[in-house]
């Protein structure tokens, strides 16, 4: 699959502070089109803050964020239209069915009812939940709910999927399923993904990795190129955290 145009995500010199607490400091990296980039960091490294800034939940103190070439601060509508987000916490309404939830999220992107119906079938098939459209979200397993969140994030056909600890709280099998779905989407749909995690085992050798610690990028590159330095470096950071 040929990918043209600006990177799916381009972050340059990004800093953010919550009052006196510096949460991010001069963070810079890119997510090329069609790539899977793992954002690796222990709890409190700044991953969720970074996701919040990319999604415009709040503005950064300094630096720029570009989604598919669109400045998130100056062109927020254009940037957000190209972004699909899976948040760490559950965002689906447990009392509603999967289809009702997805219809709502399609509406939030201005997708009409008829078009939404077709897309819902499409994305549910992609995440292997085609038979669960009429089920209440509360009746789905943890893994199914995470896949449903991915389906929600895909509805408006984003260019970049942003997944913040998408496998948190899942068992091994469900984690593998969710990871496989995302990698499958990259291979078949041409989307890009920024996968924020604290679990080293979720990183494949061919993945690009950005290691974030205490708000700073400590390591970056292809996992296989970083080799031992990645695992040793991350283990050292984990130990430092502990």
């Amino acid at each position, binding site marked *: 699959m040929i990918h043209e145009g600006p990177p799916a995500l381009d972050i340059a010199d990004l800093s953010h502070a*919550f*009052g006196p*607490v510096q*949460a991010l400091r001069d963070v810079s990296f890119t997510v090329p089109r069609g790539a899977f980039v793992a954002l690796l960091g222990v709890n409190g490294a700044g991953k969720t*803050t970074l996701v*919040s800034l990319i*999604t*415009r*939940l*709040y*503005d950064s103190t300094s630096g720029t964020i570009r989604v598919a070439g669109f400045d998130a601060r100056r062109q*927020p*509508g*254009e*940037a*957000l*239209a*190209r*972004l699909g*987000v899976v*948040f*760490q*916490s*559950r*965002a*689906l*309404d447990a*009392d*509603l069915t999967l289809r*009702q939830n997805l*219809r*709502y*999220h*399609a*509406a*939030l*992107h*201005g*997708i*009409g*009812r008829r078009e939404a119906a077709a*897309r819902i079938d*499409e*994305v549910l*098939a*992609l995440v292997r939940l085609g038979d669960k459209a009429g089920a209440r979200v509360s009746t789905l397993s943890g893994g199914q709910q995470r896949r449903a969140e991915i389906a*929600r994030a*895909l509805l*408006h*056909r984003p260019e970049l999927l942003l997944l913040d600890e998408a496998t948190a709280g899942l068992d091994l099998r469900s984690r*593998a*399923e969710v990871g*496989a*779905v995302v*990698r*499958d989407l990259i*291979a*078949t*749909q*041409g989307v890009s993904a920024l996968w924020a995690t604290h679990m080293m085992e979720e990183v494949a050798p061919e993945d690009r990795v950005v290691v974030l610690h205490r708000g700073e990028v400590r390591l970056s590159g292809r996992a296989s190129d970083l080799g031992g330095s990645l695992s040793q470096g991350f283990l050292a950071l984990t130990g430092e955290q502990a």
Partner: protein
Amino acid sequence: MTAPQRPPLRPASRPGHGLGLAGYLTAFAGITAREVLRFAHQRERFLAALVRPLVWLFIFAAGFRAVLGLSITEPYQTYVLYEVYVTPGLCAMIQLFNGMQSSLSMVYDRETGAMRTLLVSPFPRWFLLGSKLVAGVLVSILQVYAFLLIAWFWGIRPPPLGYLAVLPALFLSGIMLGALGLFISSAIRQLENFAGVMNFVIFPMFFASTALYPLWRLRDSSPLLADIAFANPFTHSVELIRFALYLRFDPVAFAVVSGAAILFFGAAVFMYDPSKGLWASRKR
């Protein structure tokens, strides 16, 4: 795990698709449909919203009928029973509680993450918040009409056209009280803090108003309390509804409720702005 090969999703028709007028209408309809669905799934919320004013009407008003004598008060043309007097106040009470309930659900949504999905929509934030506000008001209007229907069987029968005339008043009043709830939700950090809203917002607003007693009677007992009640925008919500229900228009109430609605909504949008307000300076 080997994934089956599937054809790519059909591409979007154009970049930034769906954000034209039709897109805005779709988004508004979607937000409203969700509020109505959520409300339909929460039968106890509907019952609570209905039982609360009915208790006031059936027990409190009936009990105080003999104690609280009322002279002829605008917009009424003659002496009215106390139950008749408090009914508009109880309609506004439903909207006050509904506004705060919406606020509570927004704080809950923020804690669970559902709020984030709303705010990462490509539509402007003022539009998203406004749509949520209007959706909540529509739900509150359904509750008010259900209450007025029961009140009709209890003998409280405003002019038939009053039921139609009160609709815009209910809408404006609901917007003002919902916008206040929206503003409060932006300032509350945790769900646990919501009890304070009951003590510091709902009760003072309701009791220091003309919902239960007319302004002249308040002035008889305490001029200061009467001034506070007059400055209370909830008083003007009550009067706007009361006058409309009896086919009259209260320009002062209209001006105050409209002004307060603009003020509260503007403050809420400011507070939810990513670069301003509390959201800019705190970690959630």
